[in-house]
């Protein structure tokens, strides 16, 4: 036991790390650093360094690399191969085509219009172009083309409904209610259920013609058809060579008036060749040859021949 107790805290020799005396760093930027920093604050310089230089480097490297023909060709090949690989994936394949709402003829035409053989990649089918091509068909009013999941090319077709037959110089055509051509027919008898119109410009006024056919009502069985006159007005042609000439304006009302006359007085059952309603306030009737000859006979006048001329009696004259 030591004689002297040292109550002082034991002196702990602190290990003085032999570090070099710390040089106080000068907080001031050096002249070069100062100038660079100020230059960096110039907007033009900044933009050139940040955008211009990288863009130039990228363009230069790309240009140098692409300047070789072989590399360009191989790059092209690689790209097309990747494109092909992606496009020919099973998920993009179109297996079959369904057509709804089309007659067999149209169905067949549609299937033949498809530019590729199924199954094919959906990238090869240009739906917009196909749709435009299909719309060239007169029989189709609208078509909804889409590729459904499961690889089905679905075409929902709405066909035009023929409303009238139009006889013109080239033959007989079926028109729909808007006057658009649907198809040609070889003869009137193929579609005897459709009314017939004829004359230049008749296809432009199909709606009027249909309204007139509706208005004809009771005399419809006798109606042979409507004739467009001078692209202006209609003649309603009946059998037995009778014809009702209708005005350009208010044709429907005039026709209804004629029908009313017929119903009241059996007008059309008589020997009339023409009912002229072109002036609605002054209807004019043209009698048939027989009726006129009956009148002339009663009046002791010379009779008319079938061509409407007065028969001169050669015996009398001679």
């Amino acid at each position, binding site marked *: 036991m030591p004689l002297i107790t040292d109550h002082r805290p034991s002196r702990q020799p602190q290990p003085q790390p032999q570090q070099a005396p710390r040089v106080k760093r000068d907080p*001031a930027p050096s002249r070069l650093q*100062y100038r660079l920093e100020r230059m960096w604050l110039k907007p033009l310089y900044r933009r050139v360094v940040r955008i211009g230089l990288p863009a130039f480097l990228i363009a230069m490297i790309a240009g140098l690399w692409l300047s070789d023909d072989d590399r360009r060709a191989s790059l092209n090949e690689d790209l097309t191969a990747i494109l092909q690989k992606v496009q020919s994936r099973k998920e993009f394949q179109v297996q079959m085509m369904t057509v709804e709402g089309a007659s067999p003829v149209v169905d067949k035409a549609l299937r033949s219009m498809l530019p590729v053989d199924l199954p094919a990649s959906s990238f090869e089918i240009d739906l917009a172009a196909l749709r435009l091509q299909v719309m060239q068909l007169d029989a189709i009013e609208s078509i909804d083309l889409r590729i459904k999941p499961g690889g089905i090319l679905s075409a929902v077709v709405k066909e035009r409904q023929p409303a009238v037959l139009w006889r013109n110089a080239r033959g007989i055509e079926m028109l729909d209610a808007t006057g658009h051509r649907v198809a040609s027919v070889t003869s009137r008898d193929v579609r005897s259920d459709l009314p017939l119109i004829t004359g230049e410009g008749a296809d432009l006024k199909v709606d009027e013609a249909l309204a007139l056919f509706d208005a004809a009502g009771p005399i419809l069985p006798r109606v042979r058809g409507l004739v467009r006159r001078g692209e202006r007005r209609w003649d309603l042609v009946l059998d037995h060579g009778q014809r009702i000439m209708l005005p350009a304006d208010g044709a429907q009302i005039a026709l209804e008036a004629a029908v009313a006359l017929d119903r009241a007085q059996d007008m059309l059952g008589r020997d009339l060749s023409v009912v002229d309603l072109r002036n609605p306030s002054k209807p004019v009737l043209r009698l048939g040859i027989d009726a006129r000859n009956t009148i002339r006979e009663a009046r002791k006048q010379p009779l008319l021949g079938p061509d409407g001329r007065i028969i001169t009696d050669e015996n009398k004259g001679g």
Partner: protein
Amino acid sequence: MPELYETQRAMRNIRRAALQRGVIGILDIGTSKIACLVLRFDGTGTFRETDGVGPMAGQANFRVIGAASTRSRGVRRGEIETMAETERAIRTVVTAAQKVAGVRVDHVIACLSGGRPASYGLAGEISLAAGKVHEYDIASVLAACDAPDFGRGREVLHAQPVNFAVDNRSGLADPRDHVGNKLACDMHVLTVDGDAIGNLIQCIRRCDLELAGIASASYASARASMVEDEQELGGACIDFGGGGTGVSVFIRKHMIFSDNVRIGGNLITQDIAQGLRVSLPVAERLKTLNGGVEATGRDDRDMIEVGGDTGDWESDRRAVSRGDVIGVMRPRVEEILEGVREVLDAAGFDSLPSQQIVLTGGGSQIPGLDGLAARILGPNIRCGRPLRIDGLAHQLTDPSFSSAVGLALFAAHPQDEWWDFEIPADRYPTRSLRRAYRWFRNNW
């Protein structure tokens, strides 16, 4: 003086160019710190009424977008002593402010606090041939002021027309178009040591900056810290700086006198260091944290650990009372105030209608200074902070930044100086084309 006239004129042009570019820097090179503000100007006043700062004193058309301050180096008594050191300090502060602002500063307005300023009141008089004061008459009456010999190597820092008089009517601010036979003017000229200005210009040029204006620090801090009434009715601004104490006397919104007492805060620090035997950084800490000028009984019990790293336990564990610190500081502060008193007496401050005294600068933050100043200088004393300007961070709004703020106001709206007027025609060399042009313009 014509070459300085041309330099000042060139600086005004640079200032105009800087305002057109919209960015101007403020460089307040003091003895203890260097502050740099970056101002963005817009002519349209977009920055109006933001942050509670209204368009009070024409400070509405600019905004501080970057500010930095650093310890000053190489400056002694307001003059640049070691140019390389000062240049490094300027680089530091400009880099920091630019970083905050995000724009490059090319033009700066600087202030000079030392350089032994000397004020002169000049008077000039001409007779009016036309019976009416024309634009060019003002220039010629300013040129007619008889300048005394300023001494060798003195340069004019400010030359402000303070007062115009036509016949008997004095106190005109703008005598143009007044009818009379005689035009007289009073001009206040502040000259400083030419070498001090030259060193400052050289330092700033070496930092790749262009000088767009130069002002006296005491003038700048007075513009920032005195309110309009004090400038109008008469007042003095006392800027307690590190290397010197600037005094400027204002009346009718013009500085009429400026001087510098060459005792500043650094000397107080030195006194504390010597008196209490502590190192200068410790003395600076004692001064700023525990300093004061009015001792109370409590201050004797208020012991401050001095600290130190001499290795001598006795020395490092010393404590001084706050009363000791105050006892060292107070005589020096009194000495400063006595010096200021002498300067004010020399300026004839007692004859001003209002004798408001505004204390500003870093030294004005000594607690109890206003009480001591009231005993020595006069009853109307207040401690002034700089005017609030838009965008200035809060820590830069204390009194030590008043000269920086004043320089910002100076950049925005400089008062008319002699070089803002046209050169009188007869000062041009004979046979000069401009002289002929001026003669034609004035006579037809």
